[in-house]
C-alpha cells in the first residue's frame, strides 16, 4: 500500500477565543494550514474573520488558545521574535493599506528595503519584476497609490505581500469592492502568486466564486465558531444552511466562465 506523505503544519490555531468588551467574537477556533495548501475562511460580514487574521499575525492578542506558525508559539512571544516570524509572511489588508506617502515601487519593496540598503534603480527593478507577473504596467511605479484604480491598488498590495518571497500568504478580502472581472483576475493572480513562491495561503472572503477558484480547503465561521469545513467540492453537497446560502450567491456567469 502506498504510504501517504504527511504534510508539514504551517499554521496551527487551537482553541482560540477573542472578545471585545464582553462581546464574544471568536470562540474555541481550531484549524490547521498545511504546507502548499490554500485555505479560504468564509463567513458573513462581522463574523470575526478579520479578527481571526489579526490574531494570527499578532496584531490582536487572543483571550485564550494557542497560535503556532512553523512550530513557533505566537501568543505571548516576545516582540523581536514575532517580528522575525512576521517577515516570512506576506499579508494584504482589506483596503489594500498601501502607504499614501510612498510611490508604488516604494510600497512594493518596503519590507526588503528595511532589511538591506537598496537604491532607487535597484528598487524599481525589483518592483518591476514583480508587477509584470501581476499584469501591471511599468508606468505606475512612479505614481502614488491615490493615483491608481482600486483594482490596481489591490494588485500592488499583492505585489507588496509577495515581495521577498514569503512562504505564507494571508489575504483579507482581496476581491471586496471590485467588479467580477477584476475580482476574477485578482483570484488568478493570487493562485499565480501562491504557486510562484511555492507557499501556503489563507484567504478571508465572502465571495464564493473566489473560494471556488483559489481554495483547496474551506472553513465557515458562523456564530463565533467554525461551523463547517471541507473542500470547495464538498460545499455543493453540504446541507449546512449557511453554506447553502453562500452557494446561492455564486453568479451563474462563474459556471459559464470556469
Amino acid at each position, binding site marked *: 500500500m502506498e504510504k501517504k506523505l504527511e504534510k508539514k503544519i504551517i499554521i496551527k490555531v487551537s482553541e482560540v477565543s477573542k472578545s471585545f468588551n464582553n462581546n464574544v467574537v471568536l470562540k474555541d477556533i481550531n484549524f490547521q494550514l498545511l504546507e502548499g495548501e490554500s485555505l479560504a475562511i468564509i463567513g458573513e460580514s462581522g463574523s470575526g474573520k478579520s479578527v481571526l487574521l489579526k490574531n494570527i499575525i499578532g496584531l490582536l492578542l487572543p483571550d485564550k488558545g494557542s497560535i503556532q506558525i512553523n512550530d513557533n508559539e505566537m501568543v505571548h512571544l516576545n516582540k523581536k521574535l514575532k517580528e522575525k516570524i*512576521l*517577515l516570512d509572511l506576506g*499579508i494584504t489588508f482589506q483596503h489594500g*493599506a498601501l502607504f499614501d506617502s510612498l510611490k508604488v515601487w516604494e510600497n512594493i519593496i518596503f519590507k526588503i528595503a*528595511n532589511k538591506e540598503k537598496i537604491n532607487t534603480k535597484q528598487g524599481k527593478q525589483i518592483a518591476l519584476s514583480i508587477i509584470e507577473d501581476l499584469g501591471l504596467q511599468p508606468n505606475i511605479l512612479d505614481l502614488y497609490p491615490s493615483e491608481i484604480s482600486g483594482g490596481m491598488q489591490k494588485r500592488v498590495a499583492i505585489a507588496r505581500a509577495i515581495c521577498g518571497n514569503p512562504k505564507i500568504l494571508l489575504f483579507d478580502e482581496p476581491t471586496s469592492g471590485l467588479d467580477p472581472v477584476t475580482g476574477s483576475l485578482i483570484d488568478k493572480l493570487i493562485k499565480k502568486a501562491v504557486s510562484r513562491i511555492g507557499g501556503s495561503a489563507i484567504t478571508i472572503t465572502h465571495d464564493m466564486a473566489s473560494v471556488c477558484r483559489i481554495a483547496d480547503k474551506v472553513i465557515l465561521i458562523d456564530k463565533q465558531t467554525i461551523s463547517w469545513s471541507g473542500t470547495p467540492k464538498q460545499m455543493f453537497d453540504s446541507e449546512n444552511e449557511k453554506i447553502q446560502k453562500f452557494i446561492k450567491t455564486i453568479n451563474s456567469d462563474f459556471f459559464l466562465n470556469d
Partner: protein
Amino acid sequence: MLDFFLNFLGTTGKKFITFVSNIGHFFIFFANTIYWIIRPPWYFKRILQQIIDIGYFSLPVVGLTTFFSGMVLALQTYNGFNEINSETTVARIVLTSIIRELGPVLTGLMVAGRIGAKMAAEIATMKVTEQIDALETLGTRPMQYLIAPKIIAALICIPLLVLIGNTIGILGGYVIAIYKLNFNPSMYIYATMEYLQLIDIIQGTVKAAVFGIIISMVSCYFGFNATKGAEGVGFATTSSVVISSVMILTSTYVITALFFG
C-alpha cells in the same frame, strides 16, 4: 430621586475613570515615544521631510502672524503711552511682549492649527485604513517610523520658528514706529537693543521647545488612537488642535511664572 442621584454618580464616576485612564495612556505613549526616539535606527530621511514640512512650510503663516502682531502692538502702545517718552516705551513693550509671550504663543497656536491638525489627520487616516497594521507586519515599528521623526522635527523646528517669528514681530513694530509714528530709527533700534535680555530669549526658547513637545505628542497620540473611520479622523484632528491650544496657553503661564514669578 434616589435613582437619578445614583445614575448621576454612576455616569460621573465612569467619565472620571475614563479621563484618568486616558491621562495614563497618554503618559505611557509619551514614555514609549521617548524610548523610540533614543533607540536606533533613526529615519533621517523622514526627519528631514518633517523638518521641511513643519519648519519651512510654516514660515509664511508664522511670519505674517507675528509681523502684524508687532505692528498692532506698536500702534496700540503708542496710543496708550503717547504722553510719556513713547520712543523707548514702544520699543520696550513691543520687544518684551513679542519675545516673552506673543512670539512663542502665536507661533505655537499657528503650528498647532497647521501642523498639529495635519499630523493627527495623517496618523488617524493611516490607523483607520490599516496602514499602521501593515507597517507592523512589514517589520517596521510605527512608533519609530511614524511618531519619532515628527517629535524630533517639532523639537528642532518650533524653537527656530519662534526665533524667526520674534525677529519678524519686532520688525513689524519697527515698521509702524518709523513709517507711521515717525520715530527716529536709530533711537528706536538703540532702545530695542538696550532692553534685549538673554533671559527673555532663553525663556521664549524653552516655551517653544515645550510647545513643540505638546503639539507633536498630543497630535500623534490622538491620531494613533483614532477609531471609527472618518468620524474618528475628524475627532482626532479636532481634539488635537483644541487640546494642544489649551495646553499651550496653560503651560505658557506656568513657564512665565517659573522664570519671572
